[in-house]
Every structure is written in C-alpha cells, then in structure tokens.
C-alpha cells in the first residue's frame, strides 16, 4: 500500500519515466476496459433511476395513465399539456411557489450573511454560535413541523402568548390566508439558513488577509474595509448562494405539506404539492407527469437564464 509513495521509489520512477513512456501509453489504451468497469455501477443506477424515470415520465405525460387501473394507458397526445396550461390550479400553485421563493430568498441570503459576518469577528464562543445557527438545518422536517405547529397554535401557542403580553391580539399564523405564507417563510428561514451561513463563513475564511492589511495600511477604517474588501470578495459566493436558494425554494414541498397541507384555501399550496395531489390522491399519473414537465421546463429556462447572467458578469 505505502510502497508506492516512498521517496526513493518516486525518484527512481521519475528518472525512468521517459523510457517508460511507451509502456504508459499502452497502459492507458488498455485502461479503456477498466474505465468502463469503474463507471458501470454508477451508470447502471444512473440509467435505472434517473434516465429511465425521465423517459417514463415523459411518455406518461402523453397518456391518461392512472395509479389504479390497468390497461388505461391510452395515448392522449398533447391533451395533458393543453389541460395544464389552461388549468387555473397550475397557475395558482405556480404563483404560490414563486411568491414563496421571493419571500424566502432575500432573507435567507441577508440573514445568513449577517450571521457569518458576526461569527467571523472571532468573538469567543464560536462553537456555540455555529451550533445555534446551523443545528436547525439538521432537524428532520417532521421535527420542524412538530415544534412550529406548537408555536403557531392559535389559542395555546407560544407566539400568540407572546403577542398577548404586548397587548396585541393573536393571529391565525397558519389559518389566516393573509399570514400563512409568511409564517411558512419564517419557518423556512429558521430551518435552512444554517446552510447558507456555513457557505458564507467558508467564503469569509478564504479571503486573503493581505487584502485587509493593504487596506489598513492605506488607512481604511473598519467599515470601509467591510464595504471595499469583504463584500466585493463575497460577490461570487452571494451569486452562488442566491442561485442555490432560488432552486431550493422552487422545490418547496415538505414543510408546507406538513404545516398547512397547502391551505388555507389553497393559499400556500406549491406546484409540487399539486403534482403530488393530482398523482397520488386523484390517481391521475399522466396529468401529474405533464405538470411536472411544465415545471421542469420552467426550472431549465431559469437555470439557463441564471447561467447567462453569471457568465456575462464574469467577463
């Protein structure tokens, strides 16, 4: 095992390298078979559980496949798609998804940045700060659901209890259409900000010290260094976090499904829940697939747009 890395061997190999070039070339040609061997396990799973489902899903979206019956996989052409584009539920749930994404992305970037900047001051207690801000990210969604449904309970919950202390009437956090999506966004901020916080913390640690030293030598004060050194250095990370966040927020399902089931009155139902409801509750797998492909198309368009914006900024 360790034999290959002894310095003597390495040196010997170095001096012999030229003479062995032809042997190495043959070796590389021979490794064609080995390459396939290495790649095959992954490729098998990749094909079975990614490529094939994509294909099946696409095919199903052109049929009236259902979860219950047999032999009802008749091709219906583009019917599912034309139905999807005319389905007000598709537009409403898509609207909810976009609204959720808008509500969550900005605070999830800004709060994470603030947390990382505060922790990076080097204040004693690093271990505690990191634990406090990141730990909630490790909780299973069912735990998040349990905790927040207690806090949100209208007449016995802690949040309304707190409001009462300040003489404010309690609100229906999850039951009032006006507030439900905001409450969900609040839970999401609490649950997932830790991941972005760690990405920012890593980016901060990667900023070379000499930039600060140079700035300090030039007489830049602390605030000036923040604006002229730190924030510009974090631009790429901010872009990355924003992109990841938009993608993650568009895929929201778990916490909404558990906390409100999409209610009240469909005001928080995201498109993925609509796909789930159509496929698994109403058994319309064909139509559910068509809606997923509309959603997939949207994600691809968004990704390409983001890629374009980013590559332009790089220039």
């Amino acid at each position, binding site marked *: 095992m360790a034999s290959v890395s002894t310095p003597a061997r390495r040196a010997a190999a170095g001096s012999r390298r030229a003479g062995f070039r032809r042997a190495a070339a043959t070796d590389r040609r021979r*490794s064609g078979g080995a390459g396939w061997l290495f790649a095959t396990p992954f490729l098998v799973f990749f094909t079975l559980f*990614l490529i094939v489902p994509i294909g*099946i899903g696409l095919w199903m979206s052109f049929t009236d496949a259902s979860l219950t019956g047999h032999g009802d996989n008749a091709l219906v052409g583009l019917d599912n798609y034309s139905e999807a584009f005319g389905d007000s539920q598709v537009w409403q749930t898509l609207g909810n998804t976009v609204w959720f994404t808008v509500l969550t992305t900005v605070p999830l970037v800004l709060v994470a940045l603030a947390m990382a900047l505060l922790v990076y*001051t080097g204040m004693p207690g690093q271990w505690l700060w990191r634990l406090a801000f990141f730990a909630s990210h490790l909780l299973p969604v069912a735990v998040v659901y349990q905790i927040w449904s207690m806090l949100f309970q209208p007449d016995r919950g802690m949040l309304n209890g707190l409001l009462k202390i300040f003489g404010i009437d309690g609100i229906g956090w999850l039951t009032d259409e006006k507030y439900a999506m905001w409450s969900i966004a609040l839970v999401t901020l609490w649950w997932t900000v830790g991941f972005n916080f760690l990405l920012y913390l*890593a980016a901060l640690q990667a900023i070379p010290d000499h930039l600060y030293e140079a700035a300090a030598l030039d007489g830049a004060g602390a605030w000036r260094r923040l604006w002229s050194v730190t924030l510009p250095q974090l631009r790429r990370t901010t872009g990355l976090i924003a992109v990841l966040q938009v993608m993650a927020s568009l895929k929201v399902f778990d916490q909404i499904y558990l906390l409100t089931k999409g209610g009240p009155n469909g005001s928080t139902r995201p498109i993925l829940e609509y796909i789930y409801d159509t496929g698994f509750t109403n058994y319309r797998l064909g139509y*559910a*697939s068509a809606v997923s492909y509309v959603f997939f198309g949207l994600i691809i368009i968004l990704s390409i747009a983001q890629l374009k914006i980013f590559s332009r900024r790089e220039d």
Partner: protein
Amino acid sequence: MTTETLSPRTPGKPRSTMPREVVRRRRYGGPVWHPSLGTGPLPRVLTLLALALLTVVWLVPFGWGVDTSFKSEVDASASGVDWIPKAGFTLDAYRTIFGQGNLPVWAVNSVVIAVCVTAITVAISAMAAYAFSRTLFRGRRVLFAVTVASIMVPPQILIVPLFRQMLAMNLVDTYAAVILPQVVAPAMVFILKKFFDGIPRELEEAARIDGAGSFRVFWSVVLPLSRPILAAVAIFVFINTWNNFLWPFISTSDPQLMTLPVGLSTVKDSTGLRNAQESAASILGSIPLLIVFMMFQRQIVKSVATTGLGGQ
C-alpha cells in the same frame, strides 16, 4: 505566502510594518477587518449582543420543544408561555413513547437506510469519478456531460415515474425501494471528479510502473489521497438521506419500514393534546444528527463548504 509570513502564530517573523490595531486583533485571534471591532469596547459589546440575540431567537423554538417534552400532557397543552410547568417536570412522555411507539423501529430503519445509501453512493460515485477523471474509454466525454447536466433535474419530478417503476418491479414497501433511487448522486460524481483531476499524475504513473493495475492504483493511491473529500461527500450524503422526506414517505406505507422523519410525521395529530409525547419523539428523532454534528463540527463545516455546489 504573504499571509503565512505575517501570521502572528509564526514566532520570530517581523510585524513592525503593520498598524498597531491590526497587530492587536491578530494577536487576539480575530480577523482584522470587522466594523464592530473598530474602536473600543462598545462595538464589541454590540457584536456580542447581536450574536446573543440571534442565538436566542434560533434556539428558543428548539428549546421550547425540549421543554414541552418534559411536561405533563396537561401542562403541555395549556395556553401561555410558561417554561416551568405547574405540575413540575416529568419523564412521562418519554416513558410512553418507549412503551408503545414504533420509534426504535424507525430509528433502526433510518440508520440502516442512511448507512446503505451513504456507502453505496460514495463507492459508486468515487469509482465513476475516477473513470471520468483518469481513464480513457469510448463515450467518456458524452457520459460525463450527461451526468453533469442531470444535476439540474429536480428529483421531485421523478417521483411519479419512480413510484410506477417500483410498482412494476414489485419493490414498493421494501428497503430496496427506499434505498436504490437515492444512491444516484451526479453532483457528488462531479465534485469527486474535480478533486481527482487535481491529484498529480506522477504518483499514479509511479505505481503503474511498479506493476499496479487500475484497481490497485485506485485503491492504494487515489483513495488514500482523497480521504478529506470522501469524508465530506459521505457526511453530506448521510445528512441528506437521514432527513429525506418525500421519497421515503411515498415509497413506504408499512410503519415497520418507515424512517424517523416519515414515522414522526404520521403520529402527529392536529389537536395538540399529545404535545409532550410528540415533542419527546421529535427530540429523540433529532438527537442522532445533533450528536454527529457536535462530534464532527469541523468536518461538517468543511463539507458544506466543499460540496456546497451540490445543492441541498
């Protein structure tokens, strides 16, 4: 280079050219730039206050869950904001949970599934990444391009066809149905391939000259050099699998096969009359990962940073 020679932890290096303020902060151990460390103790106190406030806000919800789990059901469903229950603290909720619940079964399922997914994912991803990085075979470029492109596919759109596939393969309500679809992680292949690309070829060639075949090179040269990134990928996959909800939720209906997150979500009732029990179950369900985090905090922080590209 510069930063190393100026580091306060390297004794005997000249630091005289630096402003005194900078030297002081470097000695203190903190970074040298932050606004709140600008002048005097007041900004530092403010920073500490801000940190403490955020920490309290982030810990209170979890703390409330812990607190509730030690209350009697009557106190747990009482209104208000009392942290100290009228009837005193009790372990009743935990006793009930252990007495009747499926919790131990779910915990075992979660461990089995997370360990299997992690092991298989790391193994097949590392092998594929090595093939893409270091071997030549027909179709290598195309296959890698397809793999990278597939990172964009939201896994949620696959659930309907995947479920059908599992029905067809007669795998619904088996471990295999939960595990197998989760081991496909194109993002991890991409991350590992990028890392393997950076390993100097000379090391490999030396081993080959010593007569090692591709497998030997992979096992004895490449893998040992890649331990940190492999650990990062493993931790990341483990956390994601442990907390994955949608797929295990859809592919299992038998309580004996449910994972912790899925099982916990099924026992919650909406009346709030079993708050203490449900909180106790939640706390027990979150302890394993919290312990993992406390033990491996440094590595996890690093793994999030290095695999951040992999998305959530």
